[in-house]
């Protein structure tokens, strides 16, 4: 018997979707509910938060007390399989490039553990070139996407408040949770220096919205994924109900190799390697929808070369892989002496911040072109690995119960210190918009393949002065807010020009976007304004790849809205028989 066989499936689907995260899950859900037959291919194993979440496990049920591992970079209880390093699936960086590529391998992808920060792009975010001359405008406007944001709000659920902010549009919100104590301190301190702090907008159900999903019970562990489906994960909220229609075949542990083409230059299916039996498979469909993540989708297109498409599929423009960009990120932490020795109560709240700061300044008056929002943390959180690490740098700086002690120490006195400082820490993180640039890109590395023999990506990404100046501004802002609340900086205060003001490497914030971008001009974009390839009309891309720019907002809510919009368009094109 031959060691490797290619197994061709006889069934022909209406759509083959590659990837089951936000984009793929929404496409599967929308198409399946319209009665289309869907094959959903996922590179990782099945995952159902109701069964597989670590929710409510106490610290001691992890031998490493929740510390990170290669398998879970956000900690041993985090609801995400893999991350920046997957065994046998390398990627490379060109000299001076430092992209850090995060990949989830599981049904639902990164949505199982994400921050649930669900922000609509605003009218300005689709037309940034009109404002500052940089990058490109989207081929669509806020008005095109607004009906889909509304539908996503209703279908999935998001809490927040209507504030009437032009570029942070109102939505259809569930009630937000009240601020925690440190968040009241932040709100007051930031307000005193003119920085707005408003209720956060997270896709967590503070009220029930349907019979299939529970409502939040305030354990703060959304990052582990929710057993009662009270927050949004694609696995629980989209893939599961999509499968329940009977119209979806889910294929797990299936690593897509390439998009298959017919003689007319149309997509006819997808080939993949089954990670369990290591055999090669082919599935066929009327359309192919890529939702494998911005970079994986670009990789698939670039690896789908043929005589007809020597630069890769849907790449007559040469744009596939280009304009790769991530959110910027810089952080700082401090301690609030007013909160020392505070009263204990259950302050877990929802998974994440109850308040945040949307971008509040005018970039015309600043030396960097795009904005950022601020996320906040702190409070009486669960003690996990790293609890009070570095107390020797803290306990000599303050009087403990009126007594000045020597830094460090041990014994009953040290135990008193741990209790005294617990719950007084606060952290802030800026997440900003970078400029999508043609010279920030990924391509196929000619020399390296992964363990399945699939050529891997090589990255060429660097920050520019714009992002570095933005990070500097973040740091100055954080220091001001901390100062305004009487807090002392405990970490992130030593950053400066020597390290780009603590600006994280591109990729670290895990908002990869831009590699399969949309546009009206087929010479400068891969997709049209309905996420459909200019070159191949039965090929779509519905993940972050299609983004022209990514705003100072987290991108998931827009991925969901655009995936729903593209799916509606696809259904209508099929009805009109524009797609056979």
């Amino acid at each position, binding site marked *: 018997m031959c060691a490797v066989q290619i197994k061709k499936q006889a069934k022909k689907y209406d759509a083959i979707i590659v990837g089951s995260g936000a984009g793929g899950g929404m496409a599967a859900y929308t198409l399946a509910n319209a009665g289309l037959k869907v094959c959903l291919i996922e590179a990782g194993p099945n995952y159902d938060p109701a069964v597989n979440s670590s929710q409510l496990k106490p610290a001691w049920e992890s031998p*490493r007390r929740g510390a990170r591992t290669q398998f879970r970079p956000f900690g041993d209880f985090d609801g995400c399989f893999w991350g920046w390093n997957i065994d046998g699936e390398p990627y490379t960086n060109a000299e001076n490039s430092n992209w850090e590529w995060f990949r989830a391998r599981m049904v639902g992808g990164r949505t199982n553990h994400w921050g649930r920060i669900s922000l609509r792009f605003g009218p300005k975010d689709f037309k940034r070139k009109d404002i500052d001359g940089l990058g490109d405008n989207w081929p669509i406007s806020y008005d095109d996407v607004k009906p889909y944001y509304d539908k996503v709000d209703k279908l999935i659920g998001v809490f927040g408040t209507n504030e009437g902010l032009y570029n942070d549009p109102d939505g259809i919100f569930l009630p937000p949770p009240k601020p*925690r104590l440190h968040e009241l301190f932040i709100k007051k301190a930031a307000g005193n220096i003119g920085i707005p702090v408003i209720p956060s907008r997270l896709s967590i159900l503070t009220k029930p919205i349907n019979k299939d999903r529970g409502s939040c019970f305030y*354990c703060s562990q959304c990052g582990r994924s929710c057993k009662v489906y009270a927050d949004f994960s694609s696995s629980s909220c989209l893939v599961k109900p999509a499968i329940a229609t009977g119209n979806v075949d889910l294929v797990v542990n299936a690593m897509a190799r390439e998009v298959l083409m017919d003689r007319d230059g149309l997509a006819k299916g997808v080939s993949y390697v089954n990670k369990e039996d290591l055999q090669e498979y082919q599935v066929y469909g009327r359309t192919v929808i890529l939702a494998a993540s911005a970079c994986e989708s670009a990789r698939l297109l670039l690896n789908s070369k043929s005589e007809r498409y020597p630069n890769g599929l849907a790449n007559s423009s040469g744009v596939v892989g280009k304009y790769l960009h991530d959110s910027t990120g810089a952080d700082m932490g401090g301690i609030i002496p007013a909160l020392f020795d505070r009263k204990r109560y259950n302050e877990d709240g929802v998974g994440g911040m109850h308040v945040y700061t949307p971008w509040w300044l005018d970039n015309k008056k600043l030396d960097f072109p795009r904005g950022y929002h601020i996320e906040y943390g702190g409070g009486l959180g669960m003690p996990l690995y790293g609890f009070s690490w570095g107390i*020797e740098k803290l306990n000599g700086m303050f009087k403990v119960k009126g007594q000045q002690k020597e830094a460090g120490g041990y014994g009953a006195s*040290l*135990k008193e210190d741990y209790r005294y400082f617990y719950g007084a820490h606060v952290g802030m993180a800026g997440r900003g918009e970078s400029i999508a640039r043609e010279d920030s890109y990924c391509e196929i590395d000619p020399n390296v393949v992964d363990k399945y023999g699939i050529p891997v990506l090589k990255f060429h990404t660097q920050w520019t002065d714009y992002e570095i100046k933005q990070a500097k501004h973040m740091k100055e802002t954080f220091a001001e807010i901390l100062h305004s609340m009487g807090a002392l900086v405990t970490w992130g205060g030593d950053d400066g020009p020597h390290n780009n003001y603590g600006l994280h490497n591109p990729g670290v914030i895990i908002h990869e976007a831009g590699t399969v971008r949309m546009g009206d001009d087929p010479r400068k974009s891969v997709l049209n304004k309905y996420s459909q390839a200019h070159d191949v009309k039965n090929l779509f891309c519905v993940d972050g790849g299609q983004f022209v720019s990514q705003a100072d907002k987290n991108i998931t809510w827009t991925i969901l809205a655009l995936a729903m919009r593209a799916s509606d368009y696809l259904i209508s094109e099929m009805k009109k028989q524009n797609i056979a």
Partner: protein
Amino acid sequence: MDRRDSLKALLVTTVSGGVLLEACKNPQTEKEAAAKPAANDADRMEEEKLHDKKLKDETFFKSEEMATIGILADIIIPKDNVSGSATDAKVPDFIEFIVKDMPEYQTPMRGGLRWLDLQCLNRYGNPFKDCPHNQQIEMVDRIAYPNKAKPDMAQGVAFFNLMRNLTATGFYTTEIGWKDVGYVGNTPNQWNGVPDDVLKQYDMAYTEKELKECVSFSKA
């Protein structure tokens, strides 16, 4: 699904690991889920199970090293009138595991323990663990206070900082440690905002807007 059903289902799933959404809909399934507890490792990937098993099957510290770690851990976190000691919370076992999981700690820990023994052998004629308690404390006092330790004790200070941090992390991430520090979360509840007496203590109040817009629960 309403809240009561969610919590009932959650109880089933966290106790048994069974499938809860079915349980919400059907009391019969709830009983079945409870009767057939799923493995407590349903949240683990196969690769993780293999990795953790491999680490648990290995032994890093020698028995003399473990004895010293136990003594140091109980000097750092002794029993007091609030909670038990580091060894009550099995901190040495945690340290044994964590240095295998984070190999970057292996040399600082092994070398630091050896440094400590050599100091004690030279000063007192015995390795640390065999010194009487007063000598152990005298030695620890030389390395426990980074700002006043003598320069020739710097390596010992670095070791003791690591030992203090590992001990504290190992202690406060146990049930004993959570109780000591007063962490009362990790349980289903209704977040109704900061308690009134705490708001008053810090001269804080929710705005009318917040009270009107935010989710509230009756205090019954």
